[in-house]
C-alpha cells in the first residue's frame, strides 16, 4: 500500500484547510461528520483496503476560510497494526487541524490517541462526547483542568442529542498545538532534529515510534523508541486523569448489566442463539424469500431480462457467440446483472445491516469473546466470527473480509473453511428445500457431516500450517443503542463497495463460463467427472452436470438436483458434495486475488478432494 500521501486519492481544492475527524471506534464520529458537511459528501476508496474515506466541504459561520473535512476509521492510536490504522495515520498526517472526538466515559483509552496527535505537533480541538452517559455514571470531569493539562480547547458534547455540535463546528479555527510529553529530559532533541531533517514533526514522531511505512517513505530506519514513548504517554495520561476526575461513580447501568450477561456462557450462549435466529428470520426468511422474490423473480427475470434481450437480439442473434456472451444463459447483461443486483445485493445488504447493528451496539466484540475458545481450536480467534458469519450471506464478500484477521495463517484457514464448508445464502435456500422433505434424520446427517468436516479441516490446517495464530485482544465497549441513520449509512457504503469490488468478478466469471460452454469444455469436464459420480458416489451420471453448474452459481448446482429423481441417501450425498465442492467462480477468483495462486490452488484442489472423499465415505456408510 502506498504510504502517507492522500492527495491523489481525495480531491482537495488548493488553499483550503484540511480538518480531520479522529477518534476511537464507536465514539460518535459520524454524527460530527454529518453535522460538519451536510449532504455534500464524497466517498473514496482507500487503495489496497476495503475502507472508504468520506470527505466534504464545510464553511463555519462567519468564517472566510474554506475547509475540507475528512473522516477517518476509528482507531486506538496512530500506527500500522492494521488497515484501519494505516488509513487513519495517512489522513491524520495530512491534517491542518484535528477534531478529536473523545468518549468521556473512556478517557483512559481515548486520551492515548489525543496525546499522540498532540505529540505529532498537529493543532487539536477535543470534543468530549457522551457527556450524558458520563453524568449518568456519576463521573465528574474538570473540563478546564483537562483543557489546560492537554493544552488544547475541550468542548463538551452529547452528539446523539445534538448538544455542543454547533460549538465544535464553529471552533475549528481555535485548535491549538498542545503540551507534548517530550521535554529536555525525554527525547526532545532527537525528535526536534529529526523533524527538521525530514521537515515534518508528525512523521518524525512516527519514525521514532518505529512505524516502518513512514520510515520507508522518508528513506530512514524506523527507530526503536516506541515502547519508551508509549509508556511515558500512558503515564502522563494516567496523571491527567487523576487530576481531572474527581468523582467516580459505580457503573451499574442496565446496559452494563446486559453487557455482562452477554459474556457469561450460561446467559450469553442463549442470547447468541437468539441473535442468530433473528439473523435467520431477517436475512434467511425475509430477505432471501420475500425481497429476493420481488427483486430477482418479478423485476429482473420477468421484466428486465426480456427487455434487454429485446434490445440486443435484433442486433446480435442470441445463438451467436456474442449473443450468448451478452444475453445468453450466463450472459453479462442477463445472468450477471440479475445475480448481482437481484439476488446478491439484497442478501449482502441484509447481512451488512445486521452486522452494523451488532457493531454499533457493541455486541460484536462480546460475541467474539464468547466464541473465541471454539475458534482457537481451529487456528483462528474470536474476531474470525465476522467472516464466518458473513460467509452464510456470500462467500465472496466473506473472503474479502478475511483481511481483518491478524496473520496470514489465519487468513488461509478462514479462506479455506469459507470455500469448503460454509454454504452461502444463495445455496442455503435450495438445500433447505431439498432436505426438509426427507425428514429430520437426513437433515441431521447433512448438518453433522458439514460440521465435522469444518472442525476437522480447521484442526488439521491448524496443526500443519507453520507459524502461530494471533490471540484475541479486544476492547469491550459499553452497550449502546445503535443509531438507525448510522446503521443505514454503513450498510449503504459497505454494500456499494461490495458491488464495486465483486461485480466485475461476477462478470468475468460469467464470461469464462460462456467461453467454456461454447467451446465444449464444460461438457468435457462434466463427462470426466462421471466415473467419480457413478462409481464412487453411487449417483446417476447427470449429477456431474449439477456439480459443475454449482461453480457458476452455487444455487444453480443445488437447484439442478430438483430435476433428478434421487433417493433420500443420494440427495443427502449430493448436497454434501455440493456444499463442500468448490465455491462459485466469483468466490474462487476472490480467493486467487486475496491469496497467492499457490494457496488458492491448494484451496481449490483441497475442496475437490474433500468433497468427493467425504461424499464417497457417506455413500458407503449410509
Amino acid at each position, binding site marked *: 500500500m502506498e504510504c502517507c500521501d492522500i492527495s491523489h486519492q481525495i480531491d482537495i481544492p488548493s488553499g483550503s484547510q484540511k480538518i480531520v475527524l479522529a477518534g476511537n471506534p464507536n465514539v460518535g464520529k459520524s454524527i460530527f461528520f454529518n453535522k460538519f458537511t451536510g449532504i455534500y459528501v464524497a466517498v473514496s476508496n482507500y487503495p489496497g483496503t476495503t475502507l472508504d474515506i468520506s470527505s466534504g466541504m464545510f464553511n463555519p459561520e462567519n468564517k472566510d476560510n474554506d475547509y475540507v473535512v475528512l473522516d477517518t476509521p476509528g482507531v*486506538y*492510536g496512530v500506527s500500522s*497494526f492494521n488497515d484501519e490504522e494505516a488509513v487513519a495515520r495517512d489522513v491524520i498526517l495530512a491534517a491542518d487541524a484535528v477534531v478529536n472526538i473523545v468518549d468521556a*466515559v*473512556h478517557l*483512559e*483509552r481515548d486520551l*492515548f*490517541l489525543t496525546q499522540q496527535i498532540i505529540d505529532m505537533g498537529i493543532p487539536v480541538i477535543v470534543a468530549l462526547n457522551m457527556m450524558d452517559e458520563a453524568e449518568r*455514571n456519576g463521573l465528574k470531569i474538570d473540563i478546564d483542568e483537562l483543557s489546560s493539562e492537554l493544552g488544547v480547547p475541550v468542548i463538551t458534547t452529547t452528539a446523539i442529542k445534538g448538544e455542543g455540535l454547533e460549538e465544535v463546528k464553529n471552533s475549528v479555527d481555535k485548535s491549538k498545538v498542545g503540551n507534548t510529553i517530550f521535554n529536555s529530559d525525554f527525547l526532545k532533541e532527537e525528535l526536534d532534529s529529526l523533524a527538521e531533517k525530514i521537515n515534518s514533526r508528525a512523521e518524525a514522531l512516527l519514525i521514532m515510534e518505529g512505524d516502518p511505512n513512514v520510515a520507508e517513505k522518508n528513506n530512514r530506519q524506523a527507530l526503536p523508541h*516506541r*515502547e519508551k514513548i*508509549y*509508556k511515558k*504517554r*500512558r*503515564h502522563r*495520561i*494516567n496523571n491527567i486523569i487523576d487530576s481531572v476526575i474527581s468523582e*467516580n461513580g459505580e*457503573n451499574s447501568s442496565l446496559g452494563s448489566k446486559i453487557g*455482562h450477561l452477554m*459474556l*457469561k*456462557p450460561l446467559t450469553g450462549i442463549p442470547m447468541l442463539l437468539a441473535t442468530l435466529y433473528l439473523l435467520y428470520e431477517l436475512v434467511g426468511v425475509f430477505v432471501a424469500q420475500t425481497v429476493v422474490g420481488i427483486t430477482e423473480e418479478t423485476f429482473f427475470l420477468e421484466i428486465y431480462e426480456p427487455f434487454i434481450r429485446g434490445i440486443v437480439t435484433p442486433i446480435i442473434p442470441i445463438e451467436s457467440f456474442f449473443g450468448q456472451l451478452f444475453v445468453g444463459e450466463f450472459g453479462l447483461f442477463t445472468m450477471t446483472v440479475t445475480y448481482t443486483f437481484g439476488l446478491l445485493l439484497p442478501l449482502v445488504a441484509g447481512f451488512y445491516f445486521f452486522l452494523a447493528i451488532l457493531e454499533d451496539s457493541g455486541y460484536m*466484540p462480546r460475541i*467474539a*469473546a*464468547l466464541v*473465541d*475458545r471454539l475458534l*482457537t481450536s481451529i487456528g483462528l*480467534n*474470536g474476531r474470525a466470527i465476522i467472516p464466518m458469519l458473513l460467509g452464510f450471506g456470500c462467500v465472496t464478500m466473506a473472503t474479502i473480509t478475511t483481511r481483518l484477521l491478524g496473520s496470514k495463517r489465519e487468513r488461509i484457514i478462514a479462506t479455506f473453511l469459507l470455500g469448503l464448508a460454509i454454504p452461502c445464502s444463495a445455496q442455503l435456500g435450495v438445500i433447505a428445500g431439498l432436505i426438509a422433505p426427507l425428514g429430520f434424520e437426513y437433515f441431521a446427517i447433512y448438518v453433522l457431516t458439514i460440521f465435522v468436516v469444518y472442525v476437522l479441516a480447521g484442526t488439521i490446517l491448524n496443526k500443519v500450517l507453520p507459524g502461530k495464530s494471533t*490471540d*484475541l*485482544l*479486544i*476492547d*469491550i465497549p*459499553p452497550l449502546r443503542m445503535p443509531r438507525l441513520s448510522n446503521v443505514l449509512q454503513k450498510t449503504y457504503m459497505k454494500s456499494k463497495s461490495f458491488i464495486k469490488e465483486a461485480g466485475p468478478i461476477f462478470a468475468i466469471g460469467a464470461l469464462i463460463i460462456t467461453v467454456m460452454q461454447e467451446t465444449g469444455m464444460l461438457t468435457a469436464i462434466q463427462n470426466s467427472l462421471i466415473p467419480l459420480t457413478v462409481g464412487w458416489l453411487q449417483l446417476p451420471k447427470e449429477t456431474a452436470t449439477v456439480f459443475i453448474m454449482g461453480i457458476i452459481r452455487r444455487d444453480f448446482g443445488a437447484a439442478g438436483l430438483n430435476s433428478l429423481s434421487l433417493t433420500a441417501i443420494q440427495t443427502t450425498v449430493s448436497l454434501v458434495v455440493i456444499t463442500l465442492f468448490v465455491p462459485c467462480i466469483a468466490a474462487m477468483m476472490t480467493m486467487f486475488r486475496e491469496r497467492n495462486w499457490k494457496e488458492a490452488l491448494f484451496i481449490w484442489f483441497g475442496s475437490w478432494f474433500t468433497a468427493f472423499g467425504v461424499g464417497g465415505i457417506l455413500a458407503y456408510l449410509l
Partner: protein
Amino acid sequence: MTLAEVQKGQKFIISDISDDNIRVQALRFGISEDAGLFCEEKIPGGPVIIKRQYQEIAIGRNLAKNIKVELSQ
C-alpha cells in the same frame, strides 16, 4: 502467577507482558505494568475479561498464559 490463573473478582497488577506488540497495544488500552486491574469475567477455557474503571478488555486464554500478574489486596 499468570493472568490465566487469576480468578473472577480478584484484583491484580500486571508485572510482565512478554510480547512486544501486545505490550504496546495494552498500553494504548490503558493497561500499563503498574495499573490496578480487576478480573471481571473468565469465559471457561476462553478469554479473560479484565477491567480498569470503565474500560473492559478481552484477552485470549493463550495470551493470558503469557502475561505475568501479581495479586493485590
